[in-house]
């Protein structure tokens, strides 16, 4: 069945069950992936998946939901029946409706959808990449984590009010994590990830080079003294921390009491006037962009922090109604509709005279810690309290030299971190989760082994 036929099937089944109001979101995908081990194919995978989430509204306008992978006629009827039963337990205190924007025009980018190259080609490319990475340095002994995949999918949203929208996309991903070992030293590991619309868009050579350089650069390491340090966050690590605390911008989290912000926080000064942060799911560099969210609301660019002040929250239909605004295209379909950012863009605003521009990661010769990548986010972030304590990969720069840091954590508070940004470099870099320049923060605690 195609998406139009499924919509018709749901509509007819809903009629037969006397369900007048419904909507659904669906995803259909075909994926191929390969892993290799020292030149040999290790695991080759293919999958065909379909997921359908149906919501129904009962006569009291309460919502019930069901998710299924069974899109047969009987499966769809069963899903509608289960959703109807679940609607008896619908949330009476927070009514959910269709998004008022579910029929608005959507901006579908030229997604450069690619054709599948197939498993054999994926395997050949990954074998070659593994060999090149192993040959790039004598200390690189293996590439224990590697994979090349391609995915082709369609996403759909439709409702009983006549809204119908869908899009199809392709996406490919390559990851290479190398492990390097030298005598009398601990093994070191690092890697690189690249995304593209198709395999032909992935810069495999640059992935190999990045993985090799990052791994080798950590071979000579030293422990760091536990103390407070001037910190330079890489674009990737700063985006990681902003995403980890995105509940600050999230209306759902505010209503649930798990955000550092509250309903009246708009306008609050969070950081230097030099900081702007946007959510821009449709950004041309966002390979995973979606033109609409789980409720069918069009995706759009939204300013979250403007010149250091909180400017907007991200919303679903129900949170927007409670906040007396419009949905922002950040909803995920569920019994309790979730809200999450798409693609964070960090930039320096025009009001940047208070920045210490001498702090540049490529030229500053004072002492600082460069945080390349933050790890264990799920364990080390307390978003509702604002605190974090995270292991990281990075370097200590001292007297014009840099040395990889062995096993350390950085700890602090997100509000302190934002308020103590002392420089935002000019050049933005594209990562897999957004765009950001290097960001400098004065004095965060680092715990090391010495």
């Amino acid at each position, binding site marked *: 069945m195609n998406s139009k036929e499924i919509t018709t099937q749901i509509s007819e089944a809903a009629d037969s069950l006397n369900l007048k109001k419904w909507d659904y979101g669906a995803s259909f995908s075909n994926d191929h992936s390969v892993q290799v*081990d020292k030149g040999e*194919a*290790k*695991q*080759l995978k*293919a*999958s*065909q998946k*379909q997921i359908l989430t149906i919501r129904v509204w009962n006569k009291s306008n309460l919502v*019930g939901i*069901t*998710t*299924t*992978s*069974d899109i047969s006629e*009987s499966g769809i009827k*069963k*899903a509608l029946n289960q*959703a109807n039963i*679940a609607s008896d*337990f619908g*949330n*009476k*205190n*927070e009514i959910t409706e269709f998004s008022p924007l579910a029929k608005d025009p959507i901006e579908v980018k030229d997604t450069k959808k690619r054709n599948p190259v197939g498993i*054999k080609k994926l395997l050949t490319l990954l074998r070659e990449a593994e060999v090149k990475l192993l040959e790039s340095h004598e200390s690189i*002994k*293996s590439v*224990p*984590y590697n994979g090349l995949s391609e995915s082709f999918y369609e996403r759909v949203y439709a409702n009983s009010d006549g809204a119908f929208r869908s899009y199809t996309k392709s996406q490919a991903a390559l990851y290479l*994590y190398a*492990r390097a070992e030298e005598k009398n030293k*601990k*093994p070191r*590991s690092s890697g690189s990830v690249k995304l593209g619309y198709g395999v032909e868009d992935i810069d495999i050579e640059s992935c190999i080079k990045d993985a090799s350089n990052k791994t080798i650069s950590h071979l000579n390491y030293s422990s760091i003294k*536990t103390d407070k340090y001037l910190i330079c966050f890489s674009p990737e690590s700063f985006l990681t921390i902003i995403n980890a605390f995105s509940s600050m911008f999230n209306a759902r989290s505010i209503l*649930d*009491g*798990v955000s550092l912000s509250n309903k009246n926080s708009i306008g609050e000064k969070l950081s230097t006037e030099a900081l702007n942060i946007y959510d821009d799911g449709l950004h041309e560099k966002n390979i995973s962009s979606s033109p609409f969210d789980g409720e069918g609301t069009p995706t759009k660019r939204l300013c979250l922090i403007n010149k250091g002040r909180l400017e907007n929250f991200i919303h679903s239909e129900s949170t927007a109604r409670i906040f007396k605004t419009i949905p922002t295209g950040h909803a995920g379909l*569920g*019994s*309790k509709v979730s809200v999450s950012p798409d693609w964070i863009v960090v930039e320096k605003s025009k009001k940047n005279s208070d920045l210490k521009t001498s702090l540049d990661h490529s030229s500053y010769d004072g002492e600082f810690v460069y945080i390349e990548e933050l*790890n*264990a986010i*799920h*364990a*080390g972030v307390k978003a*509702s*309290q604002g*605190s974090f*304590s*995270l*292991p990281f990969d990075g370097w200590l720069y001292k007297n014009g030299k840099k040395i990889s840091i062995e*096993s*350390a*954590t950085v*700890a602090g508070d997100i509000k302190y971190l934002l308020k103590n940004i002392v420089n935002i470099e000019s050049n933005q870099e594209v990562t897999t989760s957004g765009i950001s320049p290097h960001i400098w923060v004065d004095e965060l*605690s680092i*715990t*090391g082994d010495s």
Partner: protein
Amino acid sequence: MLSSQIKSNEIVFGSCNKDLLEEIIFYGIGLGADFVEIFIENTDNSNVLAEEDFITSVSPSFGRGAGIRIFKEKKDGFVSTNDLTKHGLMRSISQAIEMLDITDNKREVFNGLNKHRDYSLPKKKWINEVPSIHEISEKLLVSTKSLKKNNKIITRKGSYSRNLQEVIIASSDGTYVSDIRLHQTVGLNVIASDTQYRSSGSRRFGSSGMPNEFRLWDHEKAANDVFESSMNMLYADYVDAGQMPVVLANKFGGVIFHEACGHLLETTQIERGTTPFENKLNKQIAHESVTAIDEGISEGSFGSLSVDDEGMEPEKSVLIKDGILKKFISDRAGELRTGHKRTGSGRRQNYSFAAASRMRNTYIAKGEHSKEDLINSISEGLYCKSMGGGSVGATGQFNFAVEEGYLIKNGKLTSPVKGATLIGDAKEVMPKISMCGDDLELAPGFCGSISGSVNVTVGQPHIKVDSITVGGR
């Protein structure tokens, strides 16, 4: 009802599917596969969320799918699909054969499936015995109400999850198995706040194969525990970083052993060359006070199973005995690629993952000391009463958050501290576990790894680590 009414020429749960399964396996072997395995599942799940004094989410879900895996020598191809028709399954195995590019003429022999081992028979009634949504909702609301003990509690949540999974496993070594698995979990969470101070508390409980367990859950005790934890931590200072001795509490304290050492004893890590213990069998890798076990047989424990996802009954595996490494956790691919015998540990989240060697109920065995003995032996250190999540890097370094911690001074627990993380490396920390308490207890959890998220139990008695890096401010 769990068993689906599906038309002929498809997999039908609750019926004999032997002919169809044999036909698919014969087809794969005939085309040159060394080994063919078919894993088919049918699921029926429910989730309920209570926030403050209201049910805010009820989410049922159901689904079905198949994962077909073939091996040729040491490489394998895996295809998953939602299409359980003969056509869909044949298409999937053809795709798997094609992926492996099998061209040689060597043919394995398939003698048909063995007698059906049906573990599901006594379990078919479970679906009618588990609590209804109405019953769950009522108890969750009572639970969240119990959390409302003072005005500093600003957020109260109770959540319940029930997963019922019916599986059929058939493979070219004759394995033909059916089973039904039931997992239930219930959790409570609070956030406490007073001016600039904030804290949180959470506890999760879980069981497998016990439909009545939620009814027996002592929600009042759980609520008191969560409330007290959040209150104790509300005004806590940040811990000072440094090297110090620590005592880790029993139950979920075992998460560190699970993450930092257990994963390194899975054969998938040997395959990757990422475990420091690869060549340490029968050698000392931990303090002699440490004996560690992984098993899937404790009745009702969250990681227990009648049969693993490759059709093998789980065994009790003594991984470390008195500090000496005795065994690795192995699945079919692990046995093929590393030579370590299968332990009934081939597990996967669902049909869309190939099984891999995964832990089940994993714990450090009890010792002879009391909790007080451990604390009394420390002049300055940290007591980790409740652990949060953590992670282990590709080179074995781990990092775990301490949810509820107290300073130890002169052998006594003193003030609560927050923001602590434990940082280390299994190879270096295992020899430093110098004392084990006599109060072994288990706790349920979810473990995410190569074959998805699976239900596990972690556990230990109170243990003392002589020195570890504590991250703080």
